[in-house]
C-alpha cells in the first residue's frame, strides 16, 4: 500500500513563496488562509547569522491527532496516507485545529476576498460555500493524486498528478512520492540524505521529511 509523503530539502529553499502562491491558486484559498507557507527563520547574531526557510503545512500524519479527536468523522485518513476533510460532515467545532501541533488547520467564518468584500471574477467563480465555517487544510492536492490511476501516471513524477506546490518549486526543494516504494524519488532522497520530521516526539508520524544534510 502506498504512503504518499513530501520531502523538503532545506538546503535548497530560498524562501521565494512560489509554493505558497501556487497552492493558493490551485486551491482558491481566501486571503487569510495559507495551506502551504514558508517560515523565514533568522538565527544567530551579526556577523554569524543564518537564515533558514522552512515550508510547512499539513504533515498528513500517519497517526493524525486531528482525525482521532474529530467527533463527526469528517477528518479521515485514506489508504495512501493522505488525510482529508469531508466538508459536508464537518461541524466546525475546531477540535481538530487545537489537536494539530502543526497549526495547519483553518476555519473561515466569513467570506473574504483579496480586494475587500467584493470577489474578483476569478474568486467568484471558484468560491466554495461548503468550505465556510468548517475546517480546511492542505490536501496534498488529492484531487490530482486521484487522477494517477485513471491516467496511468505516477504522483511525484508526472506533474499532472503531483501537488501544485511541488510542481511550482523553482529550486527543487519539494518532492512528492510513495515512501513505501524503495525506488520512488522520495525514498531515494531519504536514502541519500539526513532528515528530520518536525515535532516527531509527539508521536504523530508526520509525512513531511526535512532534509538538512547529505549522509
Amino acid at each position, binding site marked *: 500500500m502506498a504512503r504518499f509523503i513530501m520531502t523538503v530539502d532545506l538546503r535548497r529553499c530560498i524562501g521565494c513563496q512560489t509554493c505558497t502562491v501556487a497552492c493558493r491558486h490551485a486551491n482558491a484559498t481566501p486571503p487569510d488562509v495559507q495551506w502551504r507557507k514558508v517560515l523565514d527563520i533568522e538565527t544567530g547574531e551579526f556577523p554569524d547569522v543564518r537564515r533558514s526557510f522552512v515550508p510547512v503545512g499539513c504533515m498528513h500524519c500517519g497517526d493524525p491527532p486531528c482525525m482521532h479527536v*474529530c467527533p463527526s468523522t469528517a477528518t479521515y485518513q485514506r489508504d495512501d496516507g493522505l488525510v482529508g476533510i469531508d466538508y459536508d460532515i464537518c461541524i466546525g467545532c475546531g477540535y481538530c485545529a487545537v489537536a494539530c501541533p502543526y497549526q495547519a488547520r483553518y476555519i473561515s*467564518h466569513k467570506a473574504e476576498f483579496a480586494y475587500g468584500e467584493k470577489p474578483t471574477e476569478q474568486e467568484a467563480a471558484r468560491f466554495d460555500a461548503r468550505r465556510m465555517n468548517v475546517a480546511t487544510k492542505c490536501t496534498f492536492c488529492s484531487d490530482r493524486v486521484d487522477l494517477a490511476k485513471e491516467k496511468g501516471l505516477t504522483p511525484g513524477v508526472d506533474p499532472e498528478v503531483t501537488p501544485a506546490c511541488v510542481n511550482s518549486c523553482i529550486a527543487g526543494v519539494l518532492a512528492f512520492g510513495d515512501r513505501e516504494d524503495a525506488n520512488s524519488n522520495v525514498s531515494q532522497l531519504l536514502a541519500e540524505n539526513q532528515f528530520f520530521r518536525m515535532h516527531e516526539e509527539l508521536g504523530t508520524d508526520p509525512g513531511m521529511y526535512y532534509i538538512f544534510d547529505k549522509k
Partner: protein
Amino acid sequence: MSDQKISPGRITPWHQTNWDWRAAGNFIGGGTGTGLLFFATVASGSVDAYRIMALIALAFVGGGLTCVWLEIGRPLRAINVFFHPQTSWMTREGIVAVPLFLCALAAVWFGGGALVGIAALLGVVFLYCQGRILLAAKGIPAWREPKIVSLILATGFTEGAGLATALAAVLPGTSPRWLIGALLGALVLRRLAWMLYFKALEKNGLPKKAMDVLRPFGAKFEMIGQLAPEMLVVAGIFYGEVMPYFAVLAGLSALASGWWMKYTIVARAAYNQGYALPVLPVRGQGEVQPGVKPGWTK
C-alpha cells in the same frame, strides 16, 4: 537546542483562535454541574433539596453544552458530534450527556432511588471525558499535559462541593456541616492536583507566553483561590454558631476560583506548539548547527 537569538514572526507559539470563552464555558458548566450532581446525591438530606440541587446541576451542564453549540461553525449539524465514539472524547462526552440528563431528570421526577446514584456516576464519567478532551488536544501544550485530567476532576468536585455547601446553607433538610468537611477535602485535592499539573509543565517545558499566564495566575490562585476558601472552611468548623455564613462564603469562593482556573487554562493559556527545528540545515559551505525551538521555556 540552541539558545541563540531568533527573528520574530509567527514561528514562536501564538494564541490559538478556535476555542474561546465559550469552550471555557463548557468546562466550567460541566465541572460545576457534574460536581454538584455528585454532592447532591450524597449530601442532600431531603428529596426536595435533591431536586433543587439536581436541577441546578443540569442547568449548569446544559449551559456548558449550549456554549459549545454556540461556538461550532455549523450548529445545525450538531447531531454529527455523535459519529465518532471510537476515538473522540468529544463524541463520548456527548453520548454520556444523553443518559446523564435522562437519569437525573427521572431521579428528580421520581424523587430518589437507584437513578440518583446512576446519574451521579454518569456525571463523573462526563467530567472525566472533559479532562480527556483537553488531554487529546496535542496542539496546545498547556492542555495536553496528562495531569490535566486529575486537575479537571478535582476542580469539578471542588466546584460541586462549593456550590452544594452554599446551597445547603439555605436549603432545608441538608447537612452543611457534613458538606463543609467534604469541601475541605476537595480543596486539598484541588491544591494537590494544581501543584502536580504546574510542576509537570515546568519540568516538560511550555510556550513562554503560556507560562507568563500560568505562573502569575498560580501564585494568585494559591492565595486567593485556595487559601481563602480553606481558611473560611476552617473558620466555619471552629465557629459553629455562624457556620452557615462561612459555608456560603467558602463554597462560593471555591466555586469562583475553579471557574477562574478553567477560564485561565482554556481561554488564556492556550498557546499553540509553534515551530521547531531539531537542527539547522547546511547552507552553502556551512555546517549543520544546533536546532531552535523558539518561544519555549525549554
